[in-house]
């Protein structure tokens, strides 16, 4: 199947702005599903609210467009009830880590088999460019007219500390790596987190004089380095990309099956 076969084409062109990185994430996600050879009925996409969350409406899978920040909580109920489904949860940075921060931590702690994609454009695009928990100190936003004083999270360290068993980061520039990482994340047995640095030229880019979508993607190229590279030692400001955590721990639904076995008198 071609990538387009997984789209609900009647909703195209999509609502995202010209050059929006979220379209690249959608593109890579479908390419990943195609490469893994899943059928449409095997996959559920659960999203919250925001620009990123509109991704669910465009894909011809089982799609659940939920509440701001709550996608992982809905996905947890869905997955536990129907463990055979592959459940992918695309979220924005505010969606995943501000309003949804607690659900993110606990889904990671449980190690439930969901694939969380944090589409990090460092802003709230849908509402017009307010600062998010990933904007970082010194950035400009409509709610930080004098410069942002809120430090940002490091998504990778946060996810790892909370117990996610697969944690990776890449960017919309590095599409081949993105497809590879998404593939590994979806196949991983347990909670997987993929942070994708995604450009918002309309709000974050304009407010922060970061240039066009092309300019912002060039920055992703120039400002990142493969995890563990020597370049990082020379320039600590570089953002590492690649797979940071890859480990096996009992997956939640499988562990619950064990609870059922014990409750029913098994040893």
């Amino acid at each position, binding site marked *: 199947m071609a990538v387009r076969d997984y789209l609900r084409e009647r909703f*195209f062109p*999509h609502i995202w*702005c*010209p050059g929006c990185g979220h379209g*690249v994430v959608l*593109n890579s996600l479908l390419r990943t599903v195609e490469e893994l050879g899943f059928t449409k009925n095997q996959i559920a996409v659960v999203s919250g609210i925001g620009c990123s969350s509109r991704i669910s409406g465009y894909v011809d899978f089982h799609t659940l467009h939920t509440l701001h920040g709550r996608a992982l909580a809905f996905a947890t109920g869905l997955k536990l009830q129907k463990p055979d489904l592959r459940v992918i949860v695309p979220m924005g940075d505010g969606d995943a880590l501000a309003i949804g921060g607690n659900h993110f931590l606990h889904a990671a702690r449980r190690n439930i088999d969901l694939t969380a994609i944090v589409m990090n454009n460092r802003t709230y695009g849908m509402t017009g460019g307010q600062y998010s928990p990933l904007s970082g100190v010194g950035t400009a936003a409509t709610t930080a007219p004098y410069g942002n004083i809120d430090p940002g999270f490091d998504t990778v360290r946060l996810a790892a500390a909370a117990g996610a068993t697969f944690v990776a980061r890449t960017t919309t520039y590095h599409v081949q790596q993105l497809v590879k990482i998404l593939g590994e994340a979806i196949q991983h047995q347990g909670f997987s987190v993929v942070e994708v640095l995604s450009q918002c*030229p309309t709000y974050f880019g304009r407010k922060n004089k970061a240039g066009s979508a*092309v300019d912002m*993607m060039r920055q992703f190229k120039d400002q990142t380095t493969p995890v563990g590279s020597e370049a990082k030692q020379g320039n600590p400001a570089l953002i590492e990309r690649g797979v940071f955590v890859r480990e096996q721990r009992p997956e939640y639904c499988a562990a619950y099956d064990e609870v059922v076995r014990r409750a029913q008198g098994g040893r």
Partner: protein
Amino acid sequence: MAKAKLESHHIEREWCKGCGICVAFCPKQVLELDRHEKAVAKRLDDCICCKLCEMRCPDLAIQVTCRKGSE
């Protein structure tokens, strides 16, 4: 090593929003934006079938079809 040969390079004009990502990152400068700010493949003979334009297109508007060349 057999090189992939381009079979077709399709751009869905209705979907293209003219962001220029495909133009900027094509390693062979195959693409341009036309006067309507839509991407067009101007120099298809130079295409090396890397598909990076298709993969990076945020509008999912590009489809590159290649076949394995036999030389």
